């Protein structure tokens, strides 16, 4: 409250525009870019990393050294939860991936693969 908000929030506006643009590019990549599936996944993942960086640097004050280490604490928890969501879903839904969806070559031999997957995920917990 001590600091007056006199400065025009140019950083925030640039960040906002950038994050919207990235989202639109991601949607376009998925819907109508016509790239092979693997490339779509890689592109979206890359865009997601950039998006996260924009959020952290332009909105979430990651560069400001505060009195606490709360941001790192929260990021650690966020990573743990993300790991639980992704690994946990793969583990739980592994039976759902066993049938051939007809499109991918990475779905073959479902039964044994999904079993290995579950084993790995279990060790990960």
């Amino acid at each position: 409250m001590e600091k007056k908000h006199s400065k025009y929030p140019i950083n925030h506006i640039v960040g906002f525009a950038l994050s919207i643009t990235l989202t639109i590019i991601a949607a376009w990549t998925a819907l109508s870019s016509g790239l092979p599936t693997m490339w779509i996944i890689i592109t979206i993942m890359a865009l997601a990393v950039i998006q996260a960086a924009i959020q952290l640097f332009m909105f979430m004050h990651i560069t400001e050294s505060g009195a606490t280490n709360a941001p790192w604490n929260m990021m650690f928890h966020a990573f743990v939860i993300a790991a639980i969501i992704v690994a946990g879903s793969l583990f739980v839904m592994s039976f759902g991936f066993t049938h051939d969806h007809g499109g991918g070559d990475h779905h073959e031999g479902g039964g044994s693969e999904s079993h290995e997957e579950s084993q790995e995920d279990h060790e990960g917990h």
Partner: protein
Amino acid sequence: MQLDEFFVTGEPLIYAGMVSIALVSATVIFLLTYFKRWKWLWQDWLTTVDHKKIGIMYILSALAMLFRGGVDALMMRTQLAFPDMNFLNSQHYNEVFTTHGTIMIIFMAMPFLIGLMNIIVPLQIGARDFAFPYLNAVSFWSFFFGAMLFNLSFVIGGAPDAGWTNYAPLAGSELSPGPGINFYLLGLQLAGIGTLATGINLMVTILRMRAPGMTLMKMPIFTWSTLITTFIIIFAFPILTVALALMTIDRIFGSHFFTLTGEGLPMMWANLFWMWGHPEVYIVILPAFGIFSEIIATFAQKQLFGYKTMVGAIVIIAGLSFVVWVHHFFTMGAGAFVNSVFSITTMMIAIPTGVKIFNWLATLYKSKIIFTTPMLWTLAFIPSFTIGGVTGVMLGMAAADYQYHNSYFLVSHFHYVLIPGTVFACFAGLIFWYPKMFGHKLNERIGKWAFWLFLIGFHLCFFPQYFLGLDGMARRIFTVGPEWFTLNFLSTIGAFVMGLGFIIFVHGIIYSFRFSPRDIEGDSWGYGRTLEWATPTPIPKYNFATVPEVDSHDALIDMKEKGETTFDRSKLKPIHMPSYTGQPFIMMAILFFASFALVFEWITLAVIGLIGAIVMMFIRSFDYDEGYHVEVDEIIETERKARRMTDDE
């Protein structure tokens, strides 16, 4: 679109609902106009950013939702009272159990507890408001409009009917066309904005705005449980947001995330829903544990036994809550190994919960218990909740769950944890802190009648359901066979006794509003231990004239010993306060409009509404209102009046 497609037609009960909505609205408008209260409504309530008033609005809305959800419950119990009843048809029954579940969890339990947190947490930590008062108002109005959107569904468009879990593919557009499920998706989405914002707001408030000297391990236990709850909210609610958004896109824009066709994964909905849904049940139980802990320590007149293990137990429960979700769908077919893993994590939760139960018992052991109504609710909670917990462990064994699942055994189990856990805590907390909210106590005699009726009604209603479940009665069936008649009839009587208890409770509120004595002390019960009781009653808008130094988790006990108050004339300084604003109300009203349009898939109108909401956010972004200061003279005057000081003091 024809008018009869817009309004729900052909059901006498729903016509009655429409008439009562129209009558109640007309009465409210008439009263506001007759007593010239419109300005008061806008200036004192709709535009407020004061955490105490927002909390009161949360609790009033939650009580209204408890009424609505309760009426749904009584309708279901009436239908099940006799074999082959014809009170509700199957479609209407589906809608009623769906709205009952959703309203009770999302629009009753959570807002009630968030309302209590709103009022009490800043007071317990010696803060003057939330970290972000404006955002707090945004949260409340998003919950309020989300709840209104959901509640509109039964008269306009048709209520959702796929259960509160809203499982795909049943909830997909192929099997459930029409606006019903959209009401569920968008009502929850709108209210979810507020819940997430409140989580962030409360977390920052607790971490950054505590009184000097109050380290984390000196916080009152209710504040601790709130802090951990905010962590769960922040990490669990985004999962719901995403799941709801995906299903909304499925239904409105024709994608295939959860559909049967087009390589959708319907079971992924169950997976995502329970990844949020299990932490959600801890969001509604942990604050309840906090409330009970406060009440037990207060009326046993003892320091809470095992404060550190209490905190540890809450943290462990919160952590485990993210790794047990599969126990809600053991029978989906994930396989023996997956089920075993989640069986074990589920049973592990019983350990920290057991620690809490024993801590409460140890606090009560050899203490001088004062049997006030909040204490009665709390004492009733311990054994009732334990029954729910023990049957939970039974359900948690994956192999045995194949027998229990989807039966009334399950129905009874979760009512046994949610009612003694959350609902008893809501009543206990409301009665306990009522003097701090309204400046007078609730009548104890009426409160005890309400308590005994509700408690007896509860056990009469739900205990027979365990045996109905073991006897094979499935949940969500709308007619019962004659072999289940006796137990179902008992259960229905119990439900109506609970309803009577609720009516008497509300009668107690009205009676106390008219007749309870007003001039009461800041420490209204006389046994207060924490900072909220250090403020005068009624609480000044700035809460604390001077914030005390704290050096234990029973801050008020220390202050009493040292003879300190929160009014130290030598330390007075002008107090910085946030300005009231109508923006949150308007912003959320616009989002309500956008969501309503999206429910009916009127895309143009929805886009217009969304643009309106973004415009409101821009207005807020460039709003440099710095609030105002309460001057020292005004503080002195307010405090003298509130503390009933004479002139020479």
